[in-house]
């Protein structure tokens, strides 16, 4: 099968990848680049564990061809914390007990990040709507919603003190 030479910009680093055209971004992230923080489950865009940011929007990487991502900005969970320092959402998830098994959490945090970038003063309902594509079977979403609310408040405070 013919292969495509792709240049993928992931977490601020350019990766040159040679891959078959049918392979998804999820395949390339996990199998070729070892970025297994992006999780794999239904492969039909039903559960959201594979959520990444593509040009700032939360998308399911399991139904996105790697070839569609050329020249675009990809952020995975590995790209959030810098030098071991959590972004506010990560810290809020830890502080609020929003993490149980944790398998949905990378996708959940990225979906929440995309939402807060768009809507810095969220409501509880807004958060729940933004996360509706990300299944979590452990938490009942309550502490996750609380964590996102707290992170938004922290970010708002940081903006006003700047």
């Amino acid at each position, binding site marked *: 099968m013919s292969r495509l030479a792709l240049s993928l910009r992931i977490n601020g680093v350019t990766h040159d990848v040679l891959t078959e055209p049918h392979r998804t971004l999820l395949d390339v992230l996990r199998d070729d680049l070892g970025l*297994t923080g*992006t999780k794999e489950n239904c492969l039909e865009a039903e559960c959201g564990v594979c959520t990444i940011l593509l040009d700032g929007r939360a998308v399911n990487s399991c139904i996105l061809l790697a070839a569609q991502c050329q020249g675009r900005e990809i952020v995975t969970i590995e790209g959030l914390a810098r030098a071991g320092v959590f972004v506010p959402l990560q810290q809020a998830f830890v502080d609020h*007990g929003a993490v*149980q098994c*944790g*398998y949905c959490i990378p996708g959940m945090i990225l979906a929440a990040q995309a939402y807060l970038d768009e809507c810095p003063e969220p409501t509880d309902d807004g958060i729940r709507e933004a996360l509706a594509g990300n299944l979590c079977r452990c938490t009942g979403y309550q502490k996750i919603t609380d964590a996102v609310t707290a992170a938004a408040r922290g970010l708002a405070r940081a903006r006003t003190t700047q």
Partner: protein
Amino acid sequence: MSIETRVVGKSLPRLDAAGKVTGTAVYAADFALPGMLHGKILRSREPHARLVRIDAGRALALPGVRAVITATDVLDVRYGGGLKDETVFARDRVRYVGQPVAAVAATTREAAEAALAAIDVVYEPLPAVLDLEAALAPGAPLIHEAWQTYTAIPILHREGNVCQRARIVVGDMERGFAEADRVFEHEFRTAMVHQGYTEPRAAVAAWDSAGQVTVWSNTQLPFEIQNTLAEILALPPSKIRVIVPGIGGGFGGKLRVGVEHFAALLARRTGRPVKVVTTSEEELTAAYPRQGTRVELKTGVTRDGRITAKEGRIWFDTGAFAGSGPGVASVATLVLAGPYRIPNLLLEGYAVYTNKTNCGSFRAPSGPQSNFAVESQMDMIADALGLDPLDFRLKNIVREGDEGPTGQVLEAVGLEECLRRAADAIGWRDRRPAPGRGKGLACGWWTTTGGSSGVYVKINPDGSVAMNTGAAEIGTAALTGAAQVLAEELGVDLADISVVSADTFATPFDFGAQGSRTAFAVGNACRAAVADLRRQLFGLAAAQLGVDAEALTLRDKAVVADGKRIALAELARLSQASGGGLIAHGTFIAPPTPYDAKRVEAHVYPAFHSPSFHAHAVDLSVDRETGEVTVHRYVVAQDVGFAMNPRYIEGQIEGGVAQGLGQALSEEIVYENGRVLNPNLTDYKMPTSLDLPRVESILVEHPSLVGPYGAKGVGEPPNIEPPAAVANAVAAATGVRITTLPITAEKIALALRGEGPA
């Protein structure tokens, strides 16, 4: 609680949080080895058929395909829990749609999938037994004609398609019903549901030159998988190493061998590491879901609301193999009794074979099904007698010192407090606040499962502490809870503890992450280890400080006495220089709970250890046009004994209610003619963030005499009561009583129009 604590009882963040929010935590599905092949399973397309021929010739010729194995390539071994009826592959007969027929290893997943499609299988269909009624009918075809030849624990009562019948008999039923003013008989049904963990079942297996296989798996029970693989491969367990890298949810669905054996067999055949991961379709057609059930209850009550007798039967549709059925059918009888004082009981639990997928364990196995029937009927009786459902329950509940159904003496019974506090919080006395709006209550009890746990606790030369446990962390933060106990007892901080877990070669035995037992049992094992470490530390410190060992205590990461102190780090270094280092082996097994053996027959779980008690209350509205339910508020009051980490206990309650509401309102694996109609996550409807209310948790603390600091098991109970609480609230809101799960909008709407069965 009056105990002053520093670490245990505090809402501290879990030890594995950082890896989980940064994506560095490795789960079994993430695990990979160089040169690894991908395994896939070919599954039966017939519910019941003779397997005439399997031809893998075309598949083996495809590019990238390295092996195809079938029943003829594996030993003819039957394995299983209490009843050994399963085989790796179907041999001459398939018994459910989804049963493994062959397995393939190939260089890529695509190649493996192509190979599956190229295997030719010829089936000769046989009459299928598609539900409980068909399986129990006189002259029904036997799912296992040779059932009598299977190895089973002798206590089981089996007969044809019934692979277990457990029974509780108390008092005199005739007299009990004669004493009643009214006798109520009702029937209930519940659907098959899936645990819904977000990480599929996954395993990687690799053999070494010494003939030893290592399996990295997301199992909840590495030691059981080790033993099961030993049976399947006919190897001593010492040749099988099972390691759990991380688990993305289990809820009981990852107890039994799932894909580990396929990975091990394919890896042996190919000489390469092999990874097998299930698809969503496989999960919903061929995993270990919760059994669908039918329940019949007959309850005698006096005019003033005293229960005089209860006769109950529950039939579990356990599928083509026993799975967890025999144990689940036994536990169910204790749940059918309810947390009530009833002098005369006849309760039976049946596990029944059908041509469906093999059912297993799901968070509080048997709990939601049995409790749905019991607690629905409590409200139906209260309504018929003109009693308030709360008052009716309070009149009959067990209290301190009462007997459980099998004669166990109940201690630390927080049920009345749970009921009163849940009812108060929901505003019970205003049960029908608006048209179409109603409130419901349900209560129950549950066990803290026994089994033994061992830990090695080592003090490092920098004063930090390694906790080495055979238990796996499935997400509940149970190992953080156990580490809190360890830190408390050892006088260190939680952050000083690191956890090594779930490796059958390197960690001590543990009965496994199941049955609400992990924090309870591992926490107690840690206390035993600290008792030993204390002796070691005090011996060393007494010599160093020149004081009597009796005068020493542990405080602030040091051994102290009379104003003198020596740091744990220094003692660890001293021990390394002189005595091989500081390490202790702590063990725990829950003491047996005495019960009256004359009251039980063929029962594998006759008493609840350190039982927990709980009450749920819900406030909801029903749209009278569409039947749609909107849950406004949900309150749980749970007697946790002692809250080891309140925030994560709330997390267990919120998550358990979420799963319970799924089972109550929307979840069902739908079978038609032996085939699952909804094997995907769009049509199998688990609650999303938009479907769930906030849950208010009330932690009640009646300390257990056995658990660490009085703790009881907390993980499973929140999953038990939601279906009954919802059914009761729907009835309060609409006057319509739905007696089958799930309580879908369609069922409610039809019932409101007087159409269709409830």
